[in-house]
């Protein structure tokens, strides 16, 4: 038992968990035909069957049931403000399955040359009164019942009166912003707190204009729009829901990582010393002091950034994204790749931090300009 917990604790260390999720992810939501083939060969697509659902939920419920025997896990999960996130996890998994289940059915129908279920249904028109109105009415009654029960069972949290001179440890942002707060560990506030949210918003609004795939409108499908679904799942499931869950359940005092069954020890110490790229370059490789000229000091960093955003799209357009480049055209393609590169920069930065203790690629604290 304890052993199992220990193993789970070790596995949930993001240095292990995050890369493995990233790795698995490409096989579960394959963005291209090649990966799809592998996926099918591995029968991963069978997750989205009713049997798969049983397995998925047994695992999930089993994990929570097992976890709740542990006092540390209990403490975190049963905290009133964390309950919605537990609910969120279940809901997301359920609806993920529901959508993929329908998508799988439709994909199979399309492969057989049939119309998707929705198209079949759409041939028939139905009066809104009473069917839809009734359904909605019932739904909102259930929702109200849920809310009232929830409200009676769980009291809304209220901590000690506000005290600006005593900061709780850890201080967390509201849960839906924990993804951003997690980013703060790897990026400066102006990036994680300002630039990225803005880009996320604009990027989301831009989705319909970038995705010019006419297929897959109005019915659940995966194979008709692999790329779109795959990227969306990456952003939504991995970079959003997963980071929120991490921030809620796995981040403890001093913003240290704690496994789900680990006690939140305020004194836990981790070697978090890190180092800027410029220091790497000058002090470790060239064995000398940092130059006082800022541009000279950060030249390498700037160069890397420029290459990342300047060269990478070009190279990608000739290689991996060749098809996409042709389908999207120059403008759409550049917007798309820039957005994608920005999104990918987070795992990249994480990797750099974990592997090389890199703090900033460009570090100009004098002007609050760190990347």
């Amino acid at each position, binding site marked *: 038992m304890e052993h199992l917990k220990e193993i789970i604790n070790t596995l949930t260390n993001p240095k292990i968990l995050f890369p493995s999720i990233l790795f698995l992810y490409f096989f579960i939501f394959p963005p291209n035909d090649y990966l799809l083939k592998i996926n099918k060969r591995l029968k991963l697509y069978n997750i989205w069957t009713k049997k798969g659902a049983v397995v998925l939920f047994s695992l999930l419920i089993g994990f929570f049931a097992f976890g709740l025997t542990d006092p540390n896990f209990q403490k975190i999960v049963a905290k009133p403000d964390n309950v919605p996130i537990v609910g969120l996890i279940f809901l997301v998994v359920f609806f993920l399955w529901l959508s993929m289940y329908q998508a799988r059915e439709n994909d199979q129908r399309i492969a057989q040359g049939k119309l998707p279920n929705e198209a079949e249904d759409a041939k028939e028109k139905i009066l809104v009164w009473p069917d839809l109105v009734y359904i909605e009415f019932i739904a909102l009654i259930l929702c109200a019942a849920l809310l009232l029960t929830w409200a009676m069972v769980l009291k809304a949290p209220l901590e000690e009166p506000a005290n600006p001179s005593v900061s709780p440890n850890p201080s967390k942002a509201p849960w839906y912003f924990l993804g951003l707060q997690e980013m703060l560990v790897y990026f400066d506030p102006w990036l994680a707190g300002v630039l990225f949210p803005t880009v996320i918003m604009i990027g989301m609004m831009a989705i319909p204009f970038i995705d010019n795939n006419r297929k897959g409108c109005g019915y659940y499908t995966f194979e008709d729009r692999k790329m779109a679904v795959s990227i969306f799942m990456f952003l939504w499931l991995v970079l959003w829901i997963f980071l929120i869950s991490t921030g809620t359940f796995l981040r403890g005092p001093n913003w240290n990582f704690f496994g789900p069954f680990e006690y939140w020890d305020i004194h*836990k*110490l*981790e*070697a*978090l*010393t890190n*180092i800027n790229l410029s220091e790497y370059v000058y002090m*470790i490789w060239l064995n*000398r*002091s940092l130059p006082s000229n800022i541009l000279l000091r950060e030249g390498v960093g700037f160069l890397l950034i420029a290459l990342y955003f300047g060269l990478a799209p070009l190279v990608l357009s000739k290689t991996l994204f060749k098809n996409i480049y042709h389908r999207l055209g120059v403008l759409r393609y550049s917007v798309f790749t820039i957005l994608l590169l920005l999104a990918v920069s987070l795992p990249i930065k994480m990797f750099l931090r974990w592997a090389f203790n890199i703090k900033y690629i460009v570090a100009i604290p004098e002007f609050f300009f760190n990347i």
Partner: protein
Amino acid sequence: MGQDERHYNINKLNFLFAIASLVLLSALGMVFLRDNDKEWRKYQTEFQTLEIEKTRVKKDAEEVKLASNGEYEELLAKLETAQAAFDQKCQFKELEKELAKLQAENEILNQQYKFSKAEMDAAKYRYETAQSHHAANLEQASTEFYALDEKTKTLNLQVEESNKKLFSKEKIIDSCGEELENLQKEKRQLVQKKNLLDRKLNKIDPQEMSFVNQMAQMVRNLPVIDLANPSLKIEQVVLQDVRDDVNFMTVPKVERCITCHLGISNPDYKDEAQPFKTHPNLELFVGNDSPHPLEEFGCTVCHGGRSRGIDFSRAAHTPASAVQKKAWIEKYDWEKLELWEEPMLPLVNVQAGCFKCHSGESTIKGADKLNLGLDVIERAGCYNCHVIDKYKDWPKTGPDLTQIASKLTPAWAYKWIADPQSFRHKTWMPSYFNQSNNSDPESKLRSQQEIHAIVHYLFAKSEAFTAEVNSLKGNPINGESLVNSVGCLACHQLKDEAQAQPETANSLRRRFGPILSGIGTKTTREWLIDWLKDPQRYHPQTRMPNLRLTDQEAADIASFLIADTNTNFASKTSPMIDDKVLNEIAFDFLKKNLPKEKATTELAAMNQQQKLLFSGEKLIGQYGCYSCHNISGFGNRKPIGTELTEEGSKSLHNLDFGFIHDIDHTKEAWFTQKLKDPRIFDHGKVKAPDEKLVMPNFNLSDQETEAVVTALLGFTKDSGVEKKKVARTPDRLFKEKGQEIVAQFNCQGCHIIQDEGGAIYPTLQDWLVKYEGRDSKEAEKVHEGFNPPNLRGIGKKLDPDWLFNFLHQPTQKVRPWLKTRMPTYSFNVAHLNQLLKFFATLDDEQSTFYTEPDTNLSNDEFKAAELMFSTEVFDCTKCHVVGNKIPAASEETLAPNLALAKTRLRPDWLIQWIKDPQSLLPGTKMPTFFDPLDYENSGPPDILEGDENKQIRVLRNYLFTLSDKKNTNSSSDNSSSPAQ
């Protein structure tokens, strides 16, 4: 409908659209312009210019000072050579290169150390947890930790070595420049002031700025941009402890006065015009080190006004005079701020603000006008008719009238009531009759009968009193001398001056008792002698003390006083009793309680005497005579006036201006008018005689009126300043209670207490000239020797038991040469204890008791003390009285009786006194025998091994023996020590 289904010409619509937009745009522009055109912006801009000028002048002065400072020039020269030497000698190119290398090495090592240390810390934590959980990987964790620990330690050593190397290299370079640096530091210190001014000018003076900064100065205050970092901005202080009462609660006061009054706390602006002028007396107000710093008290808590206002009128400025009002209207478009209860106090009444917090003190330092107002209120006895919290339980001010027949005649009483001023111009008895609402012919007739009724009542109810007759013939000349010397003039004046003199606290002290003019017209010699001998016999509650006069002295004084008559007053006649008018008066009163018919029959049943008696009682009730005087039959009647405790907070519409329109609608104007002519607001009103206003006229001078108005404005609800009031500690209460007793018994008429008082002093100087034949110059010099003592420091000085007894029965002659006598007061035990505590707290003396030190003397010591006491050394008896032995010197040089030292003085104090009398009572005649500046060598070297401390102690102990031995005979005749 046209062909294209259009109605309006699109061009016209375009035009209209353009016009409409332009109109809106210009309206919007106006919004910004108006916001940018506020009064305070102009003042701040003006102030900036002023500040630049001032700073320039100061800087120039500083530069001149520096230029003329030889030391500075020298320093500059030294600095130059040092710099040259440094440039020459201290070029370590090689060394610097080496240093750079070392630095790099050091940084790298440091970094490695940091990493290693962090890893080690983490490993340590893992190791610790593994240990406490007895985990399987304990071994591994342990080896990991110890390995890292080892590594870290080695790295640490390396870092320290590197540090050392670096340090030694740096030291070589540094030591070379040491001299230069020291010189530079010295220079910095010298030019610090100038640098500060320079820096300030750089910030504010466009001439000293770069072009970009000039631009910035212009841009930063533009509309909208001024959100960021304007130089013109509203300044405010938020006062947590001084609060605005908004009725439901109190909220912190927000003070914005300093937005325009920019120089208020800066002494540099004391000669500037408003609004930049410095506040006067920064040591007491506004200044950071004053007891009322701006940041804690703000402005409006004292001045009144609307503290949030930043516009001249909206700050509720109040003009001090009609002239100023006119000027303000012209200059600031001033208008009275309506709908605001607390406008600023006019400058003449500004001291009213002090009372908010200092209401417990009887004299408020620095608030002379307010003090004068309070003194007038005390003398005039406003609190008799009007309840004022501060004067709760104060004694009635008027004389007792229950035995009036033995003292006065009805005729005199009639004339006195009708017009007290015709007897004495400056009397505190106010005028009830012939005032603005009862001086028409009909009222005059009525008044005559009313006075008759009052007089009749007083005399009819008067109890029997027989004066103790004294058959001695008095000597008026001796009497005059006595009056002038024995202490009467502390509370009385002899002459009644028609012309109003400016009053001071001391002149009011001398009007504590009545003016002693016209006594011959007023009363009889017999009554007077009896009164002088023992005032309490006639009036047990009187505050007139017993001066312990001998029969002869009393007779002398009486015959002197009785000689003064007021012939004008004596020759006045009083009108006859008029039955018709008397009937009317009596009928009016009867009608109030009875139906008309019954009243008529009742009236018919009364004879003249009864009518007079009946009306007299009603009238005394109506006019409130009983409030100031004891009158039989009016034991516990409530005072008739409105309560004044919170008069200053009274809303303006609670003050009835009646039909008087030619005065300002302000509180101060109403109060002034009311005091000048208390009945004026009846003007134009239809009122029955008994409904008329009855407040009498005290005939106050303009100065007194203004002072009283100031005090009235100060009588406010004090909500909001609770936290800023001096805490009401027991000490504080002792002080306040003591001050109250001091004020009630006019102690400061003779003594100086808390640096105030001594009203009698100037009269003693006159006495010296007039009766002792000294010339005026000499009198001025020596009169101090005849003054009653200054009571400063007596809490530490006097033995509490002795003081208690002395205050109770002051028969012991401490200063036998003084003509002025400490009179016997009717203090009760509570009074005495309070006074003792009062004097003790004044000197921070915690307890009124002390333990007796050992005052024994050995034989040697006794001899040494005798030697010091004798003419050989200190010659104490040159001045000091010892028992009956009065030194032969002239009286003004004499000093207190040393035979009383043991019982009278505290032993500790006496040591201090002998040691350094000036520190205890500056200006005392007592010589300083032991120079405090060179104390160790100040005493006679050959006595008691020249040990000053010992000398003083021995001398003290010797003084304590004086009462026991030499003067047993003398103490017998003043040993009537009180039974306590």
